[in-house]
């Protein structure tokens, strides 16, 4: 939600500081003498403008159409839950429930009424803030600070509630329990868009948290571990009824949750989808149907076993056997790591990262805070990062001011001059401890549980700065396994761990992917396009301020600094993939070679037996040994050109903490990819035979697997 109205927001915030429990929010003006002043009126006028404005321009908030509205409601609530849990240092447990409230509607109806409920185990919300959080636009804890978080503007959840109210007339239902030892608050509230105020229709306390009404939806929700009170000792449940459309595919709730789970492996997310998918315009998209991609619960265990026994090497703390699970219609994204993202620090803006208007506003705030008395010298040091005392004095001098000059006494010309000096000054980069990258390990953990590939690599770059704002780029790739082999790579994009689902081609990350030379890494890549192959590319940008191309927060603006970092991260992953693929191709060639030998050895043993009476089995074994030894030699010591190489490159990958390889899935891919395998041609091998040798490859692959499970080969 990017509405750029910072001065108004700052004011809003201060307006609510005194709100007391049970009260409808009180404005500053109401604490003053009864008579309206021009100022208080102006404030209210702004309020009205904001909520009415959004009611009429829903698309700005992501409610353009029923399908996106459903997604946005889920997204706002989930983002808030994750933010709240992280800030409170709680490993997030989030349950998303979408109920179809018109299950008997005719099949042709394009949309339906849904109840979206998101329940978290976060810190809860103190009673007195509930109305503000849910009933007012532009109320939030995150806007006026420079800190990395998902939400920023203080619009999200109230806008969702407002949209629900507009389309269904139903209020939001909030359960929130800030204290595990006390009952939860149960509040129903509707926003009055005219006044930007919440109207509370129910306000009571209850022990029923998490709300038991959701336990009776289906067989799966009756399971004891579903919404168990132990998991949700504190927390918040938000329910919004709205007009929406539930469909799968790109830009769906399914995709959003799937991607959220990947970027937030520390969260456990449970999703109860509605009983039916909306009619019409059902997009046949290969992505974003988690129910289809998830592993049925009964299979999950077996698969975990097979992944474990197929040799796998994953960095510490990453459990490669985790996978999305589907159980009785409920989808569970399990927690992939017990580690919370590091806490991030708030920072002061860097001089190079602000606009003139903001500079003026900051000066005004500073003046206010010092009751009109702050000096420019102090302002520069206190309100900015990376301005030393010496540097502050220099700035003062540059604009013809004294160190004791009061901020309020600066002329507009001087302020502008200061702004210009900021741009030309040589300043240290902003601090970067305000950033919480996902980290290589967690990137891998997230991808591993979300994408069934055979090879994973991740890269987390060092923080960099664009326009005075620190940012950090991370990339990860997943290759092979069960990914579709002949489609363009899927690019999944994240900003501050939030998936970006729309406007891919406008996004800097998309450009970075296209500009990266994937052919260098043994992948196909049509000119100016995405690479083609069983590949998922993940890009994450962490920043205190993500530059979106538009207010809908859908694409990252194309700054050179940012794109360059993205490319570097992709190249790092790509190089590892290249090494892996070359090795794998070599292995396939060797396997095929071995296959050819093994194919004939049986016949030869029989013939020898017929001639000199030697035991056929014994000869067979000897020859087989020899065949394997020979192909193993070639495997280990020769590179593509038959050159002897000293060290096995794969060894490096195996030692690499930023790489995970799952051989059992690689074997699977070898089969699927068959046609791409270079066949070691013996004289006149016909087409028919080629197919045969593929079939045989399966056998060869499994035998190899068995052998190496015995420990001789590790991971490849």
């Amino acid at each position, binding site marked *: 939600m990017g509405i750029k109205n910072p001065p108004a927001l700052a004011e809003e915030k201060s307006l609510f500081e005194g709100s007391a429990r049970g009260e409808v929010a009180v404005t500053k003006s109401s604490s003053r003498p009864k008579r309206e002043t021009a100022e208080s009126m102006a404030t209210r006028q702004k309020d009205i403008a904001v909520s009415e404005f959004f009611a009429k321009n829903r698309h700005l908030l992501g409610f353009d159409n029923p399908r996106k509205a459903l997604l946005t409601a889920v997204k706002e609530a989930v983002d808030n839950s994750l933010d709240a849990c992280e800030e409170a240092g709680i490993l997030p447990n989030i349950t998303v429930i979408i109920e179809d409230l018109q299950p008997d509607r005719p099949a042709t109806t394009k949309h339906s009424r849904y109840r979206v409920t998101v329940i978290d185990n976060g810190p809860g919300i103190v009673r007195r803030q509930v109305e503000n959080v849910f009933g007012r636009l532009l109320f939030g804890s995150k806007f006026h600070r420079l800190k990395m978080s998902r939400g920023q503007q203080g619009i999200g959840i109230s806008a969702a509630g407002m949209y629900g109210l507009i389309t269904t007339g139903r209020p939001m239902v909030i359960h929130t329990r800030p204290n595990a030892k006390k009952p939860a608050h149960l509040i129903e509230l509707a926003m009055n868009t005219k006044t930007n105020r919440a109207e509370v229709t129910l306000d009571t306390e209850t022990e029923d948290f998490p709300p038991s009404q959701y336990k009776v939806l289906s067989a799966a929700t009756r399971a004891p571990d579903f919404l168990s009170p132990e998991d949700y000792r504190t927390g918040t449940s938000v329910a919004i009824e709205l007009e929406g459309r539930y469909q799968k595919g790109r830009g769906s709730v399914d995709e959003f949750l799937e991607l959220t789970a990947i970027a937030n492996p520390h969260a456990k997310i449970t999703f109860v989808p509605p009983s039916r998918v909306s009619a019409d315009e059902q997009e046949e998209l290969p992505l974003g149907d988690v129910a289809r991609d998830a592993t049925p619960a009964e299979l999950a265990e077996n698969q975990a076993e097979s992944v474990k026994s197929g040799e796998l090497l994953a960095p510490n703390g990453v459990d490669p056997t985790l996978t999305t699970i589907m159980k009785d219609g409920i989808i569970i994204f399990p927690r992939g790591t017990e580690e919370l993202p590091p806490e991030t620090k708030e920072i002061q803006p860097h001089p190079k990262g602000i606009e003139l208007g903001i500079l003026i506003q900051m000066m005004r705030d500073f003046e206010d805070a010092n009751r009109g008395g702050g000096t420019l010298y102090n302002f520069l040091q206190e309100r900015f990062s990376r301005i030393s005392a010496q540097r502050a004095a220099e700035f003062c001098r540059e604009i013809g001011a004294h160190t004791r000059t009061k901020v309020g006494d600066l002329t507009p010309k001087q302020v502008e001059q200061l702004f210009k000096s900021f741009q030309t000054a040589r300043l240290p980069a902003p601090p970067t401890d305000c950033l919480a990258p996902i980290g290589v390990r967690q990137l891998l953990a997230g991808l591993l549980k979300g994408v069934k590939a055979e090879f994973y690599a991740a890269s987390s770059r060092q923080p960099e700065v664009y326009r005075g704002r620190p940012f950090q780029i991370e990339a990860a790739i997943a290759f092979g396994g069960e990914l579709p082999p002949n489609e363009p790579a899927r690019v999944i994009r994240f900003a501050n761990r939030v998936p970006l689902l729309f406007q891919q081609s406008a996004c800097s990350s998309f450009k970075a992917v296209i500009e990266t030379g994937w052919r260098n890494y043994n992948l196909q890549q049509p000119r100016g396009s995405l690479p083609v192959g069983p590949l998922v590319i993940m890009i994450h940008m962490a920043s205190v301020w993500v530059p979106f191309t538009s207010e809908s927060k859908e694409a990252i603006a194309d700054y050179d600094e940012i794109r360059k970092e993205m490319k570097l991260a992709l190249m790092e992953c790509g190089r590892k993939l290249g090494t892996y693929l070359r090795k794998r191709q070599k292995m396939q060639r060797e396997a095929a070679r071995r296959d050819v030998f093994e194919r004939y050895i*049986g016949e030869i043993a029989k*013939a020898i037996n*017929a*001639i000199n009476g030697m035991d056929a089995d014994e*000869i067979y074994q000897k020859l087989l040994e020899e065949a394997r030894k020979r192909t193993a030699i070639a495997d280990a010591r020769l590179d593509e050109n038959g050159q002897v190489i000293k060290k096995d490159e794969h060894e490096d990958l195996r030692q690499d903490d930023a790489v995970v390889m799952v051989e059992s899935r690689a074997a699977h891919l070898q089969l699927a990819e068959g046609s791409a395998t270079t066949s070691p041609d013996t004289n006149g091998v016909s087409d028919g*035979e080629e197919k045969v040798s593929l079939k045989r490859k399966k056998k060869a692959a499994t035998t190899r697997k068995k052998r190496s499970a015995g420990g001789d080969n590790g991971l490849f």
Partner: protein
Amino acid sequence: MAKKTTRKSQDDKRMKERDKATLAKIVALADTITEAAFKHGDISISIPTRSRANTIWNRKKRILEMGDNKASRELFNLNQAKQFMQTMLHSATIKELIEADKTSSLRSVFYKAKHTVAGTRENTFDTQEESDPILEDLEVTLGALREELHIFAENRGAMVGNITLIDKGDEIDCRRMGSGGYALPSIVEPDVIEFKKCEADFVLHVEKGTVWNRFNEDRFWEKNNCILTHGAGQPPRGCRRLLQRLNQELGLPIICLLDCDPWGHYIYSVIKQGSISLAFESSRLAIPEAKFLGIRAKDYRECDLSDAVKIDLKDNDIKRAKEIAAYPWFKENKAWQKEIQHMLDNGFKMEVESLITKDISYVTEVYVPERLKKRDWLD
């Protein structure tokens, strides 16, 4: 009768000795491989190379001979693995044949060894063309003749003429062979075929059956007191061996009537000097004295043939003709250099049948007799 029995038992004994030697060679081959397998040595068979590079032109004997080059056929080489297996399969087959004292045609050996490789749908052999060279490899590897391997080729080629022979004890009068002639067996060694009585003055060998039919129908052999043979194209070993025996044992000149094209020239070259792939057998097959009667490049003019007989030389033909011209035995032969150049200058080929355009029996009644009389041939 009694005499015959003794000879037969003598034969048998000789045969047994030969078989024993061949068997021992096959077992030795298998033993080498077994040993290598147990010692982790190279699993390979050393096979004399039947290639152009390993063919030596013996100027004195005027035949092609095989050189001493050997190539090793390795199991653990992608390009050789299958042939290695095929070689072993055929070794086993031959051993079985010898032990059962049976002979078998190339075709049936192919069928005997052809099956799907266990666990796959791949055939051990797909075509007989794959199988035959493997048997030839075994001949040279084991240093055994084909008949010693108990293998024979299908009968191919035919013979009529003023000669009587004994074929496995049966008397064959080649004057009374009707329109089909005596089918030439693949093994014509003295223990199979004996010449009993021969009045013929020479042998006329023609390229194919159709031409041969013409000559037979016109009773050419009777009129010209000769033997008439054909080899159905490139003459098989049986045919060549018989021609050689007729030449060497009975002193009959071998006169060839072949097409005027690179293929005809090549057939002549094989009859005369031996072939590359069977260079090891040249001493049994080549007939350095064989003559090439026609068709000649000059015949288009000399015989006043119509344009209908011309068949354009293709690029491939030209290439082939130049290759043949470069064979050492042709290279030193001015007449042949001229002949090939003439054909190239003509720009067309001619078949023996082209003479029929003049008159159905022109070739038998005019062309051949005249050329013979003038001794107008190439050597």
